[in-house]
């Protein structure tokens, strides 16, 4: 049973890496240089596919969180966690790539452009989801807290997505099929598919380890309660 998920995850991961290699080869060597930015513009293929995939995985995580919260199965808790983790990694990469791209094009690594800012806020929101998860011991409460925080963090995603329209900003208008010429659209589509497959593969592998972790935890005997160093409690007042 579990070895099947391992194989599946591995297949998706390797497939994703191969497709990504093809897409990035196309983006780096085959596609024409960008008219205004020249070769610097080639990061576009990486950046846009990372951005869309981050959104896609956050969307999946939202759906998994809703199912986990109202369905209450342990498998969905693990799914939510795996998806949030993959989404967060993509989100973090997005910020790094954006900074690398911004330096030669805008002259700075970071601007307080609303879209950049909201991307960073989004990363912070999902980071705290993962942090919250590590700090709760009781499985039912942890599963609930993960799902709830994921759902609320997801409300931030549309704000990120539409912030370009809401505020006037320095960020170039969002790319779509209409604004990209076809020699550039093909490598983008391949890169996107590669990143997506890789993300799915890692999600499956991570889901597998998380499920095993939750199962082992459920079987382990309860430890006696030990106060954690982080717990500076109000109860001190009562002594």
């Amino acid at each position, binding site marked *: 049973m579990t070895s099947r998920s391992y194989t599946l995850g591995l297949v998706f991961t390797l497939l994703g890496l191969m497709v990504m290699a093809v897409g990035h080869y196309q983006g780096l060597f085959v596609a024409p240089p960008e008219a205004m930015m020249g070769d610097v513009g080639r990061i576009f293929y990486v950046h846009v596919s990372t951005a869309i995939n981050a959104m896609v995985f956050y969307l999946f995580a939202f759906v998994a969180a809703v199912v986990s919260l109202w369905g209450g199965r342990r498998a969905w808790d693990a799914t939510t966690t795996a998806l949030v983790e993959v989404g967060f990694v993509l989100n973090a990469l997005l910020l790094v790539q954006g900074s690398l791209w911004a330096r030669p094009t805008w002259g700075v690594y970071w601007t307080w452009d609303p879209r950049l800012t*909201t991307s960073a806020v*989004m990363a912070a929101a999902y980071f705290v989801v993962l942090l*919250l998860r590590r*700090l709760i011991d009781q499985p039912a*409460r942890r599963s609930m807290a993960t799902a709830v925080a994921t759902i*609320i963090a997801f409300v931030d995603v549309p*704000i990120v997505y539409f912030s370009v329209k809401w505020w006037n900003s320095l960020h170039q208008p969002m790319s779509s099929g209409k604004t990209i010429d076809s020699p550039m659209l093909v490598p983008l589509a391949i890169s996107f598919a590669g990143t997506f497959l890789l993300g799915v593969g890692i999600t499956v592998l991570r889901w597998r380890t998380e499920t095993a972790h939750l199962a082992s935890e459920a079987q382990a005997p309860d430890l006696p309660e030990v106060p*954690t160093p982080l717990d500076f409690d*109000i109860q001190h007042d009562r002594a």
Partner: protein
Amino acid sequence: MSVHPGPPADASAPPAMLPLVRPADQGLGELLRELGTGLATVVQKDLLVEWRARAQLVALLGFSVVVLLLFSFAVGPDSNVLARHAGGYLWLALLLASTLLLARSLQVEVESGALESLLLAPVRAPAIFYGKAMANTVLLVIVAAVALPVDLALTGAQIQQLPPVLLAIVLGAAGIAAPGTFYAALTARVAGRQLLLPLLLFPLIVPALLASVKATSLSMAGDPMGQLPSWLALLACFDVIYWSLCGLLFEKVVET
């Protein structure tokens, strides 16, 4: 008054909590009346608790004033710069004070198992959430009522239009209170909650903070471009989204 279902046969389920779905023989009017009564009771209770422990509220007011003083020290004595950012200082002071206020508001419930008693009273979960969120909004407005004059005095900023500032304070306080009350409930039993609550809260209220600061600053510095209504509208939208979303999810938080 209410139709009470009695404890369910399944022992693992929480005992006598009212179901989310209203029983068939309970009219909608009756349900609303029940929610309204619960909500009013919770608001009254929270404000009373705050009043009985008013030394803590005074400490909170002192805290927000000290934060405002610190901003002046960090920026330096340039009164032009200070006046230009007076709106931002006010909201950061309120935000920092709110995390202390919100954590305590749920702490008193969890410490002695009061939340369970409240649920068994029985008060429905949404009534508890909205009651506590409203009480916290009121308390934040009280903090703002003290912090605003201090802010104006320290920075030398002046208010051109008073009504939008008051509206921004009420809407902004509500925008902080709803997600804040919600996350305080979520983290009330978690180790390290004093760190977690601000970490959870701050990313989410960025839009509300932005809109509140903009609206406050525009009403202080004057609004030649007529942007004030749209910032206030954005703030109101944010409030609606988070008040409904948090109200919807609160039931899950208290029953787990």
